[in-house]
């Protein structure tokens, strides 16, 4: 019978393979627990270890993917928050500058300063005009000077109910009477438009040759013309060219007009400064007193 079975198995390789596998499986099943543990351990170390490592890589990949998605959300939130904080920082810095600027003024002059926000500024090579959010409602009038902590911005060109149009120093029609702080040399700062190079520069006109002007000299308003009060920072001399009769002086303006957000309107400086107004009234009152005193004399 065994010989017959052997003959059948030799003739059917598939069946013999199955019987061998089944026999091995049953052997494994009926092994003592200790032997089963050892075989499992060997198999686990040899084969399942790699499989488990691959499985863990897969699981790790999924975990990293989920973590990545969560981190993306956090990154977006943080970027939004950062943008807000940067805006706050800039605002804080600007307000600090304004506070520092305002503290430098005596109280009576501070009362003549009206803060205004820039609400319009057309693009272009230079800032030709600005719009601010205060107008007739705050008793603004054309000609009132506009300043920022950095220096002079310009003057009010026209006034509407709650808006005003500002003519900045950068405007083609602007001209400011200035004086150099060191050498006390007077002139008028005007823009120069280079047609070919499309470059815009600011130069002081009407300065005699061999005047006491050097690069780096501070340029401030002279107070002539009664539009701008004296001593407001306009800029700094960056280049001087001596001519036969006059001197060409190039000035770098103190204010970066493209970044101006908040300005101050000097309300007492339209035509006749407020202080002079007060002085005139005081003088008139004194004259009246003197006249009355004279008339009262016997």
């Amino acid at each position, binding site marked *: 019978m065994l010989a017959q079975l052997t003959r059948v198995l030799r003739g059917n*390789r*598939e069946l013999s*393979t*199955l019987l061998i*596998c*089944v026999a*091995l*499986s*049953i*052997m*494994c*099943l009926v*092994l003592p*627990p200790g032997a*089963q*543990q050892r*075989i*499992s*351990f060997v*198999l*686990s170390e040899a*084969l*399942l270890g790699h*499989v*488990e490592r*691959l*499985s863990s890589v*897969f*699981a790790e990949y999924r975990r990293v993917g989920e973590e990545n998605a969560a981190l993306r959300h956090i990154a977006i939130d943080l970027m939004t928050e950062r943008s807000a904080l940067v805006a706050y920082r800039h605002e804080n810095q600007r307000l600090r500058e304004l506070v520092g600027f305002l503290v430098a003024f005596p109280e009576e002059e501070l009362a003549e300063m009206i803060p205004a926000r820039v609400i319009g500024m057309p693009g272009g090579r230079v800032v030709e005009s600005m719009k601010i959010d205060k107008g007739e409602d705050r008793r603004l009038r054309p000609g009132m000077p506009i300043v920022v902590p950095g220096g002079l911005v310009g003057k009010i060109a026209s006034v509407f109910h709650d808006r005003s149009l500002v003519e900045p120093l950068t405007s083609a029609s602007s001209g400011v009477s200035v004086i150099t702080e060191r050498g006390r040399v007077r002139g008028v700062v005007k823009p120069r438009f280079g047609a070919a190079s499309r470059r815009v520069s600011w130069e002081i006109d009407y300065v005699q040759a061999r005047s006491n002007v050097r690069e780096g000299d501070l340029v401030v308003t002279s107070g002539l013309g009664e539009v701008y009060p004296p001593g407001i920072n306009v800029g700094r001399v960056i280049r001087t060219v001596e001519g036969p009769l006059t001197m060409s002086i190039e000035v770098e303006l103190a204010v970066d007009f493209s970044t101006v957000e908040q300005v101050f309107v000097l309300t007492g400086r339209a035509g006749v400064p407020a202080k002079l107004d007060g002085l005139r009234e005081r003088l008139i009152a004194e004259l009246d007193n003197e006249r009355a005193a004279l008339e009262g004399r016997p």
Partner: protein
Amino acid sequence: MKSGWFAGLAVAAVILDSAVVPEIEILGARPDFLVLVVAYAGLVFGARPATIVGFILGLIVDAEQPDYLGLHALSLSLIGFASASAWEHLVRGSLFVQICVLLGAALAHDIIYYVVYYRNHLDMFARFFVRFGLLGAAYTAAFAVVIHVLARIYTWRSIAGVTRA
């Protein structure tokens, strides 16, 4: 389909069985990728390789449960041999036939495995089989559709049965 590819698929099946299957279970039923691989080994390579593949894969999986070492090997060897024998007498390229063979293979595997596993608690076996076995076998058989589509795309003639024009 080359045998190297198939060996890769067998390894992938073991990995998928431990890593992915728990994630894709439906109502507690899980597909059995090992049965899938062994049954298709019978279709592609014949009874002898399918039996050996079933035995080796079963033994690898059994290493996780030393108390029943050889039980998966036994059931998968039998599945490999039985499915290969079934393919001999059936229209191999038919999707319906493949679904039926896979369904039968998955059911047979569960019966062999869990009868031994629950040999002292056959009532539990019946409950388990009705609750999870039938649905799991259907889930496994559903993968025949996926494999059939892939076989048509990649012109695995032994599985698709036809070639693209």
